């Protein structure tokens, strides 16, 4: 799988015409990705990833790099496989019996799939924030402290307190909740809950944060807060975000990947994708031309 070199990725946009002829019907054909799926300083590297649910193939030959301290947005119509792909990156798909993942996924050049890989430390390194805010039905403090506790990161209460405070501060929630850390996390507003989930994720100091439509259940103001937060988090973390809002992808990401029916159609600088996408399907999607 490593034989696929960077050149292959850069060569693709040279002949976009040939690809533009493809229509939506050509779904079974394995498509070559247009644009720049690879980067030099990759944190996560995917090569030739195929995902199956039983007999059905959900992801076809996807190769993509996610660079260090980069925000990569994944967009595409519902059922295009972007969430499935995201869940491959911390092996959340393992919980689905019928799900099978082929191909190579590496984190810092170490494969994350394999018999010897333990998912517990992997998931500590690759955190996840879900579509619906899902705080545990526990106190705000316990929500954030849960990860450090189960992974044995903090041994003393004072240490744990520090981690909780820092995580909440970084998630921009500290000032809103510092007076009521013992109150249930589910009592917060939707946006606060989602920031609590982000705080919970960063409490174990992950290297990568995966976000699966983190704002789809939130109002615009809460969304703006989360987007602001994502931008701040980029300094310390690598972020992959799936979103249905193209404007959000345009606002928060450096690169945008467009998925279509399980194929990675185009990856490019976000700027390019939103002003001048190279693939017809990307163009059709972001301008709202699908029936």
């Amino acid at each position: 799988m490593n034989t696929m070199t960077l050149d292959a990725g850069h060569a693709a946009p040279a002949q976009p015409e040939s690809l533009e002829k493809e229509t939506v019907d050509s779904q079974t054909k394995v498509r070559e990705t247009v644009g720049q799926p690879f980067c030099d300083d990759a944190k996560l590297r995917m090569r030739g990833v195929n995902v199956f649910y039983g007999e059905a193939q959900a992801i076809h030959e996807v190769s993509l790099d996610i660079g260090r301290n980069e925000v990569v947005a994944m967009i595409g119509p519902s059922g295009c496989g972007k969430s499935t792909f995201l869940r491959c990156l911390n092996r959340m798909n393992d919980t689905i019996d019928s799900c099978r993942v082929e191909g190579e996924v590496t984190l810092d050049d170490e494969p994350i799939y394999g018999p010897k890989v333990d998912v517990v430390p992997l998931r500590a390194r690759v955190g996840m924030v879900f579509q619906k805010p899902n705080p545990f039905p526990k106190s705000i403090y316990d929500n954030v402290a849960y990860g450090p506790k189960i992974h044995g990161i903090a041994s003393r209460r004072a240490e744990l307190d520090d981690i909780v405070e820092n995580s909440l501060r970084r998630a921009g929630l500290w000032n809103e909740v510092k007076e009521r850390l013992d109150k249930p996390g589910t009592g917060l507003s939707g946006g606060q809950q989602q920031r609590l989930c982000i705080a919970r994720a960063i409490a174990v100091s992950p290297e990568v944060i995966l976000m699966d439509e983190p704002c789809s259940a939130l109002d615009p103001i809460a969304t703006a807060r989360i987007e602001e937060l994502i931008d701040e988090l980029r300094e310390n973390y690598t972020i992959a975000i799936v979103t249905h809002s193209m404007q959000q992808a345009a606002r928060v990401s450096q690169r945008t990947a467009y998925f279509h029916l399980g194929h990675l159609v185009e990856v490019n600088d976000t700027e390019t994708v939103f002003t001048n996408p190279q693939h017809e399907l990307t163009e059709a999607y972001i301008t709202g031309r699908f029936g």
Partner: protein
Amino acid sequence: MTDLTQQQVRERIERRLASRHLKEKIFRGLGIASIAFGVLAVAILFADIIAKGSGAFVQSDIQLEITYDPAVLGIEQVDQESLTWANFTGVIREALRERFPDVSGRAEKRELYSLVSTGAPFALRDRLAADPELLGQTEKVWLTADDDVDTFVKSLSDSRNGFRGRTSDRMAGWIDQLLVAGELKKRFNSNFFTNGDSREPEQAGIRAALVGSLFTLLVTLMLSFPIGVAAAIYLEEYAPRNRWTDLIEVNINNLAAVPSIVFGLLGLAIFINFFEMPRSAPLVGGLVLTLMTLPTIIISSRASLKAVPPSIREAAMGMGASRMQVVFHHVLPLAMPGMLTGAIIGMAQALGETAPLLMIGMVAFIVDVPHGITDPATVLPVQIFLWADSPERAFVERTSAAIMVLLSVLIAMNASAVWLRKKLERRW
């Protein structure tokens, strides 16, 4: 397709409106009627049971002037040994003869003696044992009346004639005299709650059955809850979905529908014949009822596990929690109220179960209150079954009274299920 104007459409809608409302009303009426029927049935059942059974909570007593005459008793001093063979029956007969001096003849005397319960001498023995000073003295004592007398007295208040049964005219005359003199009174029947079973209705109580039920349920709960919850967790959280787990699921559902007598036969074959456990013991009863309640508990536990939102599992898993941590830190606490409710409902079912217990010998006549799970015992529903089978008229009201006790325990258990759910259910 014809294009309808808005006016036409509105007219059509309005035309159908009346019949739609009517249907709605009919449906609502049917619902109310069926609920009313159910409530009525329950009301009649309760009214009948309470009407029949309330009498069992009172008992007639006869006041007699008892002389603890050492000559009649045949003892010189009060001690452990002398008390066991002292003739208290003689003392009572003496007192009765003194109360009704004009009674003569063998048959008449036998009738006179039958006014007082055969258990009365034991009451006198207890009094004397408590206070040895009474020896040789005379005192007025309330003694339990015989069940025939009791039944007659209770029926008197219902109608003028009264239920005679084995009560002769002569006896009725004596009872009238006693009543007029205020020497025959009704009091709260504490025997019913403190005694074990007896052939004599006025001596029979439910204590042994209640304790037997308690021990049996304890065994059932201790076994079925952990096993059921463990099985449910494995099936729901760990087991892969394949033909084997499907088969297991179908079988669990089938087991829940198996007639309970089959479990009794199974218990008889395995626990008593093969493992040679004691018959009539709460241990075996509990084991059999465990088999019977397990499917219920597994099914309800699985349902409450399923009801835990998957987002919580995902959240925990996404944090890197292991499967067991996910289950024990997050899923189980959320599913617990539902599981407990299921368990209590299963227990209530087990409490009311008779058939399988008949098979393992818990139908025996047990007078003594059991002291452990291996002592011979009976349970409440079996006690009810036994009493319902007894010929004495006085057992009718005791049967109903026992049903009332059983129902109260059931209601209490179900209420505690509701209360537990309310208390444990996290509203956050």
